[in-house]
C-alpha cells in the first residue's frame, strides 16, 4: 500500500456500488414474512381503520403515539400478522409482528431498513426477546428487552412499535 496508487481502488468500487438497484433493500417481503411465521396457512386481510376512541385507548395503554388510523393486519387460522413501520433515527424501519391465537408474539421480522447506522436490530437473538410477549407485559427497553449498544434508537422505537401493536390487538381486534 505504498504511495498514492492505492487510491486507484476507488473508481472500481464506485462502479460496483452504482450497479445496485435504486429501490430500498428489502430483507423480507410481507409475503415472505407471513410464510416464515405462519407456513402455508391462508392469511386474509382484516380491514381495520381505528376510530378516534380506539386511537386514544391505544395511546393511553402503550404510551406510544399512533401515527396512522390504518392498521395493516391479516388473520390466519392460528393467529394474526401485522405489518408496520417506525422511525429508526431519521428513516422508516418496516417490520412485521406475528401473534398467535392468544395474542402472544410469535415472531418479529425486519422487512426494510434504510439508515446507515443501527441495522443491528436485524439480529435474530435481539428480535427473539419479543417471542411469547403479550399485551400487558412491560416491554420496556433496558428492562425486559435488552438494547444493542450503538443501535439504541432503533431498538427503542421498535420496542415502542411492538408495544403499540399489542395494544392495538387488545383494543381493536381481540374483542371482536
Amino acid at each position, binding site marked *: 500500500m505504498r504511495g498514492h496508487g492505492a487510491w486507484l481502488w476507488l473508481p472500481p468500487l464506485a462502479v460496483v*456500488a452504482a450497479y445496485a438497484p435504486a429501490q430500498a433493500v428489502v430483507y423480507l417481503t410481507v409475503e415472505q414474512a407471513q410464510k416464515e411465521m405462519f407456513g402455508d396457512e391462508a392469511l386474509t386481510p382484516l380491514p381495520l381503520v381505528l376510530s378516534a376512541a380506539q386511537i386514544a385507548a391505544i395511546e393511553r395503554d402503550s404510551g406510544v403515539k399512533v401515527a396512522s388510523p*390504518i392498521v395493516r393486519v391479516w388473520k390466519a387460522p392460528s393467529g394474526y400478522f401485522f405489518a408496520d413501520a417506525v422511525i429508526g433515527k431519521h428513516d422508516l424501519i418496516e417490520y412485521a409482528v406475528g401473534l398467535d391465537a392468544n395474542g402472544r408474539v410469535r415472531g418479529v421480522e425486519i422487512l426494510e431498513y434504510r439508515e446507515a447506522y443501527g441495522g*443491528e436490530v436485524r439480529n435474530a437473538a435481539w428480535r427473539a426477546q419479543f417471542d411469547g410477549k403479550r399485551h400487558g407485559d412491560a416491554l420496556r427497553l*433496558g428492562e425486559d428487552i435488552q438494547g444493542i*449498544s450503538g*443501535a439504541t434508537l432503533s431498538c427503542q422505537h421498535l420496542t415502542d412499535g411492538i408495544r403499540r401493536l399489542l395494544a392495538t390487538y387488545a383494543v381493536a381486534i381481540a374483542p371482536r
Partner: protein
Amino acid sequence: MTHRLASFALVFSALVGCAARADETAPPAASAEARAQSLERKIETLSRELDALKNELKQVENQNEALAAQQQQQAVLAQQQSAVQNGGGPWDRLSLWGYGEVNYYHPQHRPEDTQADLARAVFGIGYRFGERTVFNSEYEVEHAVSSADDPGEFEVEQFWVDHRFADWGAVKAGLFLMPFGLLNEHHEPTNYYGVQRNFVETLIIPSTWREGGVGLHGDTVSGFGWDLGLTTGFDLSKYELNPETPLYGRASELKEASPLQATHQELALANAQHLAQYLALNYHGLPGFLFGAAVFTGNAGRVDRSAHLPDSRLTLWEAHARWRPGRADFAAVFARGTLGDTAATNALNPGASNPLPGSFFGYYVQGAYDVWRRDQTRLAPFLRWERYNVGASYAGLAAGFAAVPAGFPQPYDRVWTYGMNFYLNPHVVFKADYQSFQNNADFTRFDLGVGLNF
C-alpha cells in the same frame, strides 16, 4: 354457504321426485290428498327457506363487495402514506439533529483554574437521495466562540455519503467517524457517563476521531458487524517536539497530551500521500452484550519532512465490551498504539521537552446502575477506573535526558471517577462527577455538566 345450498337442492329434488311418484301410484284418495297437502306445506316451507337463503347470500355478497372496496381504499391510503413518508419534496428528505454540552470544571487544589465552558454545540444535517443513498454531516463549534482571538474551533465533524448496494453491505465515502471503541461513533453527551469523556477514548483513541476515505460495512442477521476501509491517517509533521511550556496543566486540557490528538488531520488539507487501513468487528448476537475490536495502521510520515528521517508507521488497536443486564451497565475498553522508527527523530532532538513516544496505551472499566426510574426519567450513579500512559516507551532518548522535563505534568495516570448521570428524559442529561488523579494530584477535580441530544 354453497355447501348448504347444494344439500338444500338435493333434498328439494328428492321431495319433488317423491311427490311425482306418489301421484302415479296412489289409490286411496283421502290419504293421498292428506299426503299431497303435507307435501305442499313442506314445499312451501322449503321455498320460504330458499328465499331466506337467497337473501342471506345476497347480503354476504354485498358485504364482500364492501370489504373489497374498503381494502382497496386502505391500499390507496397506505400507498399515499408511504409516498409521504418516503418523501417527494426536499423537506421530507432532509433530517436535522443536534447535540451539545455546557460544563463546569473545578480543580480541587487549584480553585483559580475553575472554568465554565460551552464545550460543544453541534448541528447535523442529513439528506436522503433515494431509498439506498443517504448523506450525513455534522458541524461543531467547540468552546463557544471561534475567532483568531478566541480558544474555540469551528469544524466539520462528519461529511459522508452512505450507499447500501446489497442487503449485506453498504459503502461510505467522505469524512466519517472511525469505528473504534464504545463512544467515538456515538459521542453525544447522553451516551457516556461523566461530564467529560473518559481519558482512554480521548487520549489513546482520539475521539471524535474521523478520517477521509471510503469504507465498506454491514451487519449479519446472526449479530456480526463489520467495517473496513481505506482512509487518510496521521501526520507527524504536526507534532510539536519541543514546546517551551507544558502543553497541558489541568485535567480539562489533557487532550493536548495525546500524540494522536496532536497529529490527526481531520481532512483539513490532509496529507494524503499514504493511505491507512482499518478493520473493525463487533458481535452483538447476545442481547445486552457487545464485544468488538478494531485495528488501524498507516504511514504517519515524519516530524520534519525536509530531514533525512525514516517515516513512522502508526498502528492503533483496541478491544471493547459492554454488558447491560437490566438496570446495570458495565463497560471496558483497552486501546494501545505504537509509532515505529522514532529513535532517529528523538536522537536528532536531544533534550526535547516532548519526545516522540514509541507506544501509548490505556484501559478502563466502568459500572453504572439505574437506582431510580420513573417513566423516562432516571438516575444512574457510576464508577470508573482508568489508566492511561501516552508515553509508555521512548526510543533513542539521549543519555541523561528524561522523557518529561522537571515541572511538566506526567503523561500517565490512574484515575477514579465517581459520579452520576440524571436523565430528565433520554435526550437531556445533568451530570456531576469527582475525578481523583493518582500521579498528577493537582488535576483532581469536581465537574458539573448539562448535555442534550435530539
